[in-house]
């Protein structure tokens, strides 16, 4: 079975985020594999392993030639990657992202299953996997917290407001996975070394047959008017626990009449 995993390379969420003058996210520092995507990569590796053969292929896009995050996922065990790298992609909205990724997925032969995280940690639109399914005209199951494949059918526990729905779909299909669906492995030293020489098929938007003026900020159909600071929440009283801090909490709750 061949599985494609959509992954995103993002600025380290532990660093304070910043915007460029055109309101796009600053991506000049070191980019890392979005932690949310490590779950999809792990899931794909396990499914291929269980199926007894096949490849895990990564698909990603970036406005520059960035591959450091891809190397992390390759080090985990993915076989190869397709990177759509094009300055025209700066400022791309969710729909354009889906169109580009869908076209890139088209370059991978015999994809049975397409996995993605439910949402990226930086943009967090949470719509791209379902939009990819829409563009490719494939069935989809989102917000998966458990995934199994057998006999050409993917079975998924899909998160709901009340619990979960047991769902199934014939392959090929798109499935988005929640964090925690599996425990991502750490790349081994051997894996890290091997990743350096794994193939990364780097293409431009034009290579995919997509008009560069139709994607990116110019084609997004939406325009950022301004970015303003939100009203700040003031810090209140901060005390050091002297063994009696719990009483302070009780007093506070009493004052709010919630006890």
């Amino acid at each position, binding site marked *: 079975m061949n599985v494609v995993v959509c992954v995103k390379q993002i600025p380290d*969420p532990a660093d304070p985020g910043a915007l460029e003058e055109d309101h796009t996210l600053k991506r000049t520092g070191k980019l890392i594999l979005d932690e949310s995507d490590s779950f999809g990569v792990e899931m794909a590796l396990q499914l291929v392993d269980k199926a007894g053969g096949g490849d895990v292929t990564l698909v990603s896009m970036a406005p520059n030639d960035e591959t450091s995050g891809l190397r992390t996922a390759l080090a985990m065990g993915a076989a190869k990657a397709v990177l759509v790298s094009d300055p025209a992609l700066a400022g791309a909205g969710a729909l354009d992202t*889906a169109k580009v990724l869908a076209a890139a997925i088209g370059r991978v032969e015999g994809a049975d299953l397409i996995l993605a995280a439910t949402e990226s940690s930086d943009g967090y639109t*949470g719509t791209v996997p379902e939009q990819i399914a829409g563009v490719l005209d494939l069935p989809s199951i*989102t917000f998966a917290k458990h995934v199994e494949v057998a006999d050409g059918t993917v079975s998924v526990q*899909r998160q709901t407001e009340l619990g979960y729905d047991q769902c199934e779909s014939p392959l090929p299909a798109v499935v988005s996975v929640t964090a925690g669906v599996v*425990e991502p492995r750490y790349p081994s030293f051997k894996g890290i070394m091997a990743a350096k020489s794994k193939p990364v098929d780097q293409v431009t938007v034009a290579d995919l047959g997509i008009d560069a003026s139709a994607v990116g900020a110019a084609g997004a159909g939406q325009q950022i008017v301004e970015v*303003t600071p939100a009203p700040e929440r003031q810090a209140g009283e901060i005390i*050091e626990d002297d063994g009696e801090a719990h009483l302070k909490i009780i007093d506070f709750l009493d004052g709010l009449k*919630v*006890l």
Partner: protein
Amino acid sequence: MALSTIWVHAEASDAKVATITLEMLAKARELADTVECFHSGPDAEAIAATLGAHGAGKVHTTGDLGGGLAGVHLASALAQAAGAAPPDLVMFGTTYDGRDTAARLSVKLDKPVITNNTDVAVEGDDIVVFEPIFGGTQIVKTKFAAGAPAIATFRPKSFVAEESGGAAAEVAELAVPDSGAAGAARVTDRHVEESSGPKLDEAAVVVSGGRGLGEAEKYQIIEDLAKALKGAPGASRAIVDAGWVPYSYQVGQTGKVVKPTVYIAAGISGATQHMVGMKGSKNIVAINKDPEAPILSIADLGIVGDVHKVLPKLLEALQSRG
């Protein structure tokens, strides 16, 4: 300029309308002359009165999808209906089915969808939406520039639900075109997770635990405290990812948005991912051993201390009050 028509995604379970739907209806009424709902599921007749009371003139329903997922089928139906006469704006909640349907609709209509908004306004001829970023420290204002309909998703608790005293919404059929292979995914069974006590996103008191608890077994005291306070237990993404508690406990950007009377964060440092889901709480109490933890900068009462010492004493004191 007021808008002419807004469509609002109506979600319901067990014939009870989701709060997010009523919140969006309140805002939609403010902006447009005509507000209508669209819906999939078996319970349109049962919810028509509530939707009408909150300002919806009509509810267009696909009816029961027979196991089909809402995203693809409801979006196909909407795209077909919008082809004849598109509304100015289509509003979805940032919910599981809301996001799926908005995503599929955006592809069908080749229009952008702007997600995670907390407000919407009409400025001149433009519809603009407001989205918090970087843990809610900054607000991005974006205008739609691709023509009607504008498609947007809204975070829960962005608006205040309020009845307008309208008559029951008229129930109309929404035809569902055949989606072919793309519509092949099905729900085969539904599982409802039993939970006692109030729901996380409705509770007046929320007690959340994070990585600072040290190990999964230590989460029990969060459950005990929540119970003693008649509140709901919550969690940071870190310990949900680590498998200590189910995803349904998660408060944050991914997960639930909560605005309780009081939010108690124990052993949570305050990653932006978490803060965006709870900084709307009316009062915040934080307990963290690191005086530099970001959560302390937004707490009304911050305790710099060891959760393993403070929480047991707090629980004992609460229980002794009966």
